[in-house]
């Protein structure tokens, strides 16, 4: 026997049990916000924002391309590379961050402690998704700011150089100079580019929702990441594949069926590439942007519900 003070071993003593707790709301946005905020903190403290530095380096490097092209052409190239890179960063981040978060919570058993509090599983999933989307939104805004700075500085440099050259040659009327400068400004910083950033956000949001769905049943983060990227590529080839295979009569039934199945099951990511047109300088059609926003919301709701369908009964 130990020589400690004797532990209390008497039969169940009559102590006063504690009173019942407060009522719990069935669904609480507060709980969703708490999980979202913690996801943001987690991603921030994982130092994920360091990728912005890499992005800034790419954009600054591209901004200093020294190619024999017109100022308008050079600006257009800077824009395309910068916005293209922004798009890649956004969807890649959406996949990696989402694929890491939920399996990590399961592996670390953090999920046990969260789900043993009065938290609904839908609140947990929604919180995680909102957190990832929040970080993507902030990153996109930061990347856009970097791009805008580079594009604007190059644009003003080109405009003033062109203006001085044209004035010095004394061969052009004011209207002709204006016409020439507007050619450059057309490829410079315009408000429409903000819509291109929004387009990248729409795409990244859908990618994140699909990845959450995958991670509710995938066995590892690596599997989720690989499958998400694969789906992303296939989701872009959608229309190309169907127009190529479905109209070729010599293709057999099996191939046609496969293409149809892929079309039905995999999101059509190609639609979300409408930022490319905007970056090229095409006019933005507001109604289409709204409808794409609606489609994005549709994808988010459906994939969240699908995730819940798998997750709600999942045993840990």
């Amino acid at each position, binding site marked *: *026997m*130990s*020589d*400690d003070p004797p*532990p*209390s*071993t*008497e*039969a*169940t*003593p*009559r*102590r*006063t*049990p*504690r*009173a*019942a*707790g*407060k*009522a*719990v*709301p*069935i669904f*609480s946005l*507060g*709980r969703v916000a*708490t*999980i979202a905020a*913690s996801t943001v*903190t*987690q991603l921030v*403290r*994982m130092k994920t924002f360091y990728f912005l530095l890499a992005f800034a380096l790419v954009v600054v490097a591209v901004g200093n391309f020294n190619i024999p092209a017109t100022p308008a052409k050079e600006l257009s190239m800077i824009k395309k590379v910068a916005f293209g890179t922004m798009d890649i960063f956004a969807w890649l981040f959406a996949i990696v961050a989402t694929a890491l978060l939920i399996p990590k919570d399961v592996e*670390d*058993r*953090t999920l*046990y*402690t*969260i*789900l*043993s*509090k*009065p*938290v*609904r599983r839908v609140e947990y999933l929604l919180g995680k998704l909102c957190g990832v989307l929040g970080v993507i939104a902030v990153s996109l805004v930061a990347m856009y700011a970097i791009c805008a700075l580079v594009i604007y500085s190059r644009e003003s440099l080109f405009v003033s150089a062109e203006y001085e050259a044209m004035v010095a040659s004394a061969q052009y009327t004011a209207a002709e100079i204006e016409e020439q400068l507007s050619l450059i400004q057309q490829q410079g910083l315009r408000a429409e580019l903000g819509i291109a950033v929004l387009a990248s956000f729409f795409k990244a949001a859908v990618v994140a929702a699909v990845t959450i769905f995958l991670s509710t049943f995938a066995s590892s983060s690596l599997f989720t990441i690989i499958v998400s990227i694969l789906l992303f590529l296939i989701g872009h080839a959608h229309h190309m594949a169907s127009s190529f295979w479905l109209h070729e009569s010599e293709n057999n039934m099996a191939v046609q069926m496969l293409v149809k199945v892929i079309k039905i099951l995999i999101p059509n990511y190609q639609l979300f590439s409408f930022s490319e047109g905007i970056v090229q300088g095409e006019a933005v059609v507001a109604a289409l942007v709204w409808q794409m926003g609606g489609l994005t919301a549709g994808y988010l709701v459906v994939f969240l519900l699908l995730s819940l369908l798998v997750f709600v*009964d999942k*045993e*840990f």
Partner: protein
Amino acid sequence: MSDNAVEVKNLTKVFRPGLKKEYVVAVDNLSFEVRAGEVYGLIGPNGSGKSTTMKVVLGLMAANKGSAKVFGLDSGDIRARNEIGFLPENPYFYKHLSGAETLRFYGKLCGMKGRALQDRIAELLQLVELEGAANRRLGGYSKGMLQRIGLAQSLIQNPRLVILDEPTAGVDPVGSRQIRDLILRLRDEGYTVFLCSHLLEQVQEVCDRVGILFEGRMRREGTLDELIAIENQTSMTIENASPELIAEIQNLVRSHEGTRLVEEGHSRTSLESLFIQIAERGREGKS
């Protein structure tokens, strides 16, 4: 509402590992109850079904048959979980959060906010003696500290029932002792404690009632006295006894028919107690 904190009735849980055809019965027709205000220990070797039972009570798993209720509410009910504080075995919380942030996170999940939450965090940090490490990230916590912040987390919303899964697994004897003392304190404050362990000595020290689980079935259940007393044996511990007195007692025992001296020797301290004494002396010497 029921008087029982936990009521498990005919609980059966079956697993099918991978795609194999055979089934593994983790819990087999298990029934028991944890009364409000008591410390109940479920003991058994690894793989006896303790954790599975706990997960069903917590709503993390569904039973194949039978039911589990918490204060009369179905264990899957979100309201039931508001009454439960849970500390998993070897808890890993978000390493990027500090001790205080961890408590704030779980407090907010329980709908707490503002001053009330702040006060509760301070109170719990004091209870688990982690005020000094409140702003340190959990990545730098020792196992014992993690276990204590885990315990504080489980108490954040002032639940009526605290469920502890192997609360001292992997913790050194000093940390283990601190947790044991905390459990006793919780009991005195009116919490119902339901714990799972395979460390029998620890269970013996804190539990009012114990259930012994083996291969998914309840083998014995009752108060500690009922379970461990050997009815026909008596032990005495005598201080400063002279050899003459001992000889006298031995003669006395021999003179009674049917009586036999089973064991005799010097009292020994347990290795755990010895370790704790040394550690405490060392600490006092330092301060």
